[in-house]
Structure formats: C-alpha cells, structure tokens
C-alpha cells in the first residue's frame, strides 16, 4: 500500500516536472486567481442583479426578475443626482489636485536647500488613513473651529459671517468635502508630476536654451508636451479614485445636509446596507461599472495616444 503511494507520488512529480506541464503552472495559478477574485464575484453580481432579492427576505425566496432592477435604477432620480454630484466632486477636486500638485512639483524638482524635507512634507497627507483625515477635518470645520478662526479677518473684512457653516450649509458642505479631498490627494498628483519633471531629458531643455527660447517657451513648448503622459496618468488615477468618494462623505456630513453630499458610492451603500436592496444594488453597480469603465478606457486611449505622439516626436 505504502509502496503504491510512493510510486504514485513519484509519477506525479515526474509529470509535473515535464516542461510543457511546468510552464502551464503559473498560467493556471494566475487564471485561477482571476476566476476566484474577479470573474466569480462579477458573475455573481450579474446573477444577483437579475433577481428580485431584498435581504429582509431569505435568499431562498428570491426569484428571477429579468432586467427590471436595471430599469428601476435608471428611473431612480436619486441615482442620477448622486452620480451628477459625484462627477461634480471628482471633477472639481481632481482639477485643483492637478493644478496644485503640478505647481508644487514644478517648485520641488529644482535643487534647493531642504528640498527633501519639503518633498516629505508634501507627501504626508497621502499617507494619512482617510478615516483619520476625515475625522481631523470634522474638527477643523467646526463652526467655532480653527479654519473659521483663521478665515475670520478675511470674512469679516468682506462683511461675511465669520461662522461659515462648513458642514451644515448645503454648498459649504460640498466644498468642505472637496477641500479635504484636495488636501489628501494632491500629494499623489505631486508625486506623479515630480517623477515626470525629474524624467525630463535635460538635453532638450539645454538645446532649447541654446536656440534662444525663453523660460516660458521652454515650459510651454518642451516641458509640457513631454509631461502630457504624466498628466494623463494623474488624471486617470485620481479620477478613478475620486469617483469612488465615500469616506469623506460619511465622516464629515453623512451625505447631508439633506442629500447635498450624497455621492454615488454613498447612495449604493445606503441602498444595500440600509435598505437591504441587494439586487437593486447589484444592478446599480453593473451600470456604474459600464459608465466608469467607458470613461477609464477613454482615458487610457488618450494616454496611449499621447505616449505614441511623444515617442514619435522624440524619434524625429
């Protein structure tokens, strides 16, 4: 019996050590991981989205519902409002993150004393856990808190009430979230732009200078075109993240006042975890996947195009 087992093991290891089999092992492992982590949950989400299932009824009572969940999502006003709000938050925040990150990187890539310290400081916000960042901002935004104290001389001079209701006024609350997001994630755009600036070929700058180009011309005609791929990367990465905005909305305002800070992620969370609408949530997730997927693929297409243009230009 024992001998038979040893024989079997030997033949198995011999079979595995064949090159044609051995080569397949990593491939199978990658495929299995893909199936386990992506394909199966994705298929399950699609399956649930086609059912009529609220968690307040046992799953055994769920039944096939066709595409009605999708129709419901698409005809739910709040879904579109939340989506619109998310694009507004993401668009505004990413714009400021790009501008500020770019300016900081422009300053920091030049050699000066204490440069490393500044770079480290600029990168700290990104390392803060979002929950901690959100909590800190909730303290900063209190009506009688530090931000209003700092702004008081300016607001009072402008005849504005110095007690800005950062978290309880519908518009101020939206900006409170945008500011917190900008604070936290400008570090990332800064990092991307800094690496972009550092990678700029010095010969091109020198050549432009020899040819009599001004600083502005060098920046506009040489640096900026070369930085386009970095800009595209920053836009894509940050947009992908910003469209998932959830933690700040929960921590600072819990979607309020009213629904003024309810993002699409928050909307989904509420539908699934508060209202128990699992199949509705699954359908909404699939719709969002298509919307966001289309945007991201378009972004990647632009990035690839920019890269090939830059590469073509550098080949000339």
């Amino acid at each position, binding site marked *: 019996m024992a001998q038979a087992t040893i024989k079997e093991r030997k033949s198995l290891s011999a079979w595995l050590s064949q090159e044609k089999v051995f080569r397949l092992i990593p491939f199978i492992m990658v495929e299995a991981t893909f199936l386990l982590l992506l394909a199966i949950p994705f298929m399950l989400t699609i399956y649930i989205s086609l059912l009529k299932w609220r968690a*307040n*009824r*046992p799953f055994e009572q769920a039944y096939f519902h066709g595409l009605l969940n999708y129709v*419901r999502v698409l005809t739910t006003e709040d879904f579109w409002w939340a989506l619109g709000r998310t694009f507004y938050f993401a668009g505004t925040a990413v714009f400021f993150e790009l501008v500020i990150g770019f300016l900081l990187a422009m300053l920091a890539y030049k050699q000066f004393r204490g440069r490393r310290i500044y770079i480290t400081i600029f990168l700290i916000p990104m390392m803060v856990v979002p929950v901690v960042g959100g909590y800190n901002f909730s303290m900063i935004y209190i009506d009688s808190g530090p931000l209003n104290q700092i702004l008081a001389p300016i607001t009072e001079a402008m005849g504005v009430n110095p007690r800005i209701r950062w*978290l*309880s006024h519908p518009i101020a609350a939206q900006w409170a979230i945008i500011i917190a997001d900008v604070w936290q994630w400008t570090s990332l755009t800064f990092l991307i732009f800094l690496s972009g600036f550092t990678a700029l070929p010095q010969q091109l700058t020198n050549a432009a200078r020899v040819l009599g180009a001004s600083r502005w011309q060098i920046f506009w005609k040489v640096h900026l075109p070369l930085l386009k791929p970095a800009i595209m990367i920053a836009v894509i990465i940050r947009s992908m993240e910003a469209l998932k905005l959830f933690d700040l909305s929960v921590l600072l305002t819990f979607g*309020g006042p*009213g629904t003024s800070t309810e993002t699409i992620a928050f909307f989904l969370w509420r539908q699934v*975890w508060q209202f128990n609408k699992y199949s509705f949530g699954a359908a909404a997730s699939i719709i969002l996947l298509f919307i966001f997927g289309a945007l991201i693929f378009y972004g990647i297409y632009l990035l690839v195009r920019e890269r090939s243009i830059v590469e073509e230009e550098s080949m000339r």
Partner: protein
Amino acid sequence: MKRIFLATLILMGITVFVASTAIAAMMVHPGKTVEERAINGAKAYIKKHNLKNPKQTMLLISLFKNSQPKYLRQWKKLTGVDMGSIQYGYTDIPAKIMAEAVAKTGQYDVINHFPYVIPDAVGAGTLQPLDAYMAKGKPDFTGIDSGLLAQQKYKGKTYWFILDGDHLALFLRSDIMKAAAKEYKAKFGKEPGCPDTMAEWEQMAKFFHTKKGQTRWGMKFDQPLYGAQAYRSINFSYRHFPAYVGGLLFDKNMNPTINTPNGIRAIKEFTSIVKYMPPDVQGWGTPQLYPHWGSGQAFSFMSFPSAMGYANRNPKSKISGHQLACPIPAVKGASGKMVRRAPQAAGTGYMVNAHSKHPELAYYFIQWFTGPTQGDIAIADPAGFWDPMRASNLTNKAVLDKHTEPFVKMTMKNAKNAISLLMIEGNYEYFNVLDKNMAQVMQGNISAEQAAKNVEKGWNRITEDIGRKEQIAAWRASVASGAYIDKFAPTN
C-alpha cells in the same frame, strides 16, 4: 341518554382544561418574581443541556458600553452564563443584523436595538419569536403603556422586550420664562409654560428668539438665544415627524396619507419652526444638539428624555436646574381632534438571534434584565440611558433620584401618547424618502405640497417593490396592535 352524553362531554372538557392548566403550570419555571423565574429557567436549561461554562454574546449599542457590562457580570454570578458584548454604534447594528441573516453565524445571541429593526429582521429570519419561552418564564409587563408595549410584537408574535421609554418630550428654559413672564402675559394673556399645541410652541419660539447682543428681560445676551431646537437632519427627521401628523401615515390599503390637507399641514408645521432654530440644525445629531442645549443657547428643545438629565448633570451645563419638562404638544390630527403623539424615537430593547445556539438561554437573560425589579435598577443607573417606562418608576426612589420626580411624572404622562415608528418591512427606506423631502423643504428648494407629492410617490414605489399585499397585512396588524394609538377611519 342525551343528558348522559352531554354530562360526559362537559366532564371531559373540564378534565382537559384542568389537565392542560396543570401541565402549563408545571411548565412554568419556579420563582415568585419575573427575575427569579428567568434565573431558574437559565439554570434548568444549562442542566438539561449539560452545558459547561456556557458563553453567550450580546450585540450592544455602544452608548451602553459603560452601563451594560456590570449587569452581564451579575448574570454570570447568578446563572454561570458568561455573556460578553460586541459594541457598535446604533447606526451600524441594522446592517450587522441583516448580514447575520445571510451568514447565519449565531455569533450574537442577544441583540440590543430599537424596535423598528424588527420587521426587516423577522422577514430575513434573524429574530427568534419569544412566545414559547414566555410561556415558561412568565414575564410581566404590567404598568407599561399600550403604545410602548405594542412595539414588542410583530405580526402577532413577540420579538422584543422593552427597557427604555424614549419617547419625545419638550423641554423649556424655566429661568427665561420666569424673567419674561410679565411681558409674555401682557402679550398672550397667559403665563409662559408648557405649550398645548405645536402652533403655540412655535409662537413661544418666536417670542423668545433673541439675537446676540440684545438686552431683554433684564438680561444681556452675549450669545444668541434660539427660540427652539430639535432634530431636523437626515436620519432624525422621521423620528419627529409623526408627532406633527397626529394620525396614521397610511390608510388601510397602504395608500400614503401625507398628500392630504392634514399631511401638508404637518409638513408646514414641522418645517416652519426651523427659522427659530440654529442655522446648523440640519446637520446636527445628538452630539451637537445636547451640548448646544446645555450651553444655554436655546429656549426650547424637543428631544429624547435624556436631554434633561444631560443638561442637569453635565458639569459644563449652564442650564442645570433651569428646565421645565413638558409632554409633547398637540396637533389637530387627521380626525380633526386635538391629539398628542409622542413618537418612541429611540427606545431600546432586547431581542434573541434565531441563529443562536441557545436562543432559550439568551431569552432568560432578557427576561431577567428587563423584568420589573431588575429593569427599574437599570433605569435608575446613573451611567445608563434607559428612560422611565413602567408605572412602578413613579414610586421607585432610585429612579426618582436619578431622573427627578417632575420629569418622571411628565414622562409617564407622556407615555400615554407614545407611538411606535413605522413597523413594516423596508421602514428605513420609507423614513429616508421622508427625510430627504423634509430637508428639501427646509432648504427652501421645494414647497410642502411638492414634498407631499414626492413622499407619496416614493412611498408607493417602495410598497410596490416590497409587495403591497404583504405590506398591507403587516400594516393592518401593527395598527390593530395599538402601536400608533390611531385606528383606521371608518370610511377607509
């Protein structure tokens, strides 16, 4: 022959009745009190199932983290059951309950939460009906008003034991009323005091609303005095709104009653008083409202009963000893009569997880802890947030010492008006539709009429989504139980 047959039949009937009564009596655990029967029931259960060092867990609202553990230790001393606790904020617990419905882990044996989680949790199969255990333990609910008691049941079965009379009340600043009494009387022909109606409360809020820097009634106001404060944010508005309706939110066929003259009146009254409240009120919950009340910046506060204790005991409070507790003001309700309705906005209680390994053992804990004697001890606990709810609280010295006699008297009077929040499946979604539209009205984005239409449409959509037939059955059962005091109009 006929007579003999009849006599035999009667005799048999009597025998069956006596025998069943005797068997039922034998089934009841020994003990003179509710608590003794619960302890003996737990001991008998442990013995019968031969459990060694039994351990159980409670899913506990984190608000009770300082008060509940000592009772869990006491339970261990009494029965040997080691009851631990896992604490979450009360907004997180409903999701945990629903996750349990899917996972069926039995990780929590006892669940501590509000009654409005019952319909969804029962639908999902997470809650254990307690009636069979109650037959053995014989709990006693005498002295608890019907509106509070009705929340324990859903579709005719008991799932929840109450230990918290957390229905809304109104608190006024007695010091300011005293100072302004003359002027107020000259204007309104009566001394300021507990308002009879919501309209009168708003009138008082308007009168007492004072800007920063003003000098009134011989007092200089260095900070503004807001005429009123109350819960007006998402996740809270729905707990207060029923006080303004003074009737049922649906007719007997689950058609919303909000888009009616009475519903629109309720929305207008609910939102109108906001102009005398702090401008931030739409973003405030308890952590903001209680300190603001204690800071003396408001004249009146419609709130959970614990607001008064908070403002009396908090060392930073500027209004300690200067509060007058009032029952909920009346509104001209759907019936056309003046009615007072105090929503049981946050009353906590205890349930048993249907997936617990030992649900009966978990039951005995909740019978013991919510019993008339033990429950009163908890209500008197200085570290606890359990509010008076039994008639016995009126004479219990420890309860009176903690809550003060005028307050206990008021809240027990107010308990007669206590009503449940909506006890049907998907209630949280119904609440959210209401909250969102109230927020829109308060922000001036839509009119009360438009909000009424929106809410009606949203509520109908939810009803259709869950199943109108099921919702009608649950709604009629909860109305019949007396949970909302009001009944269907005869024409319905």
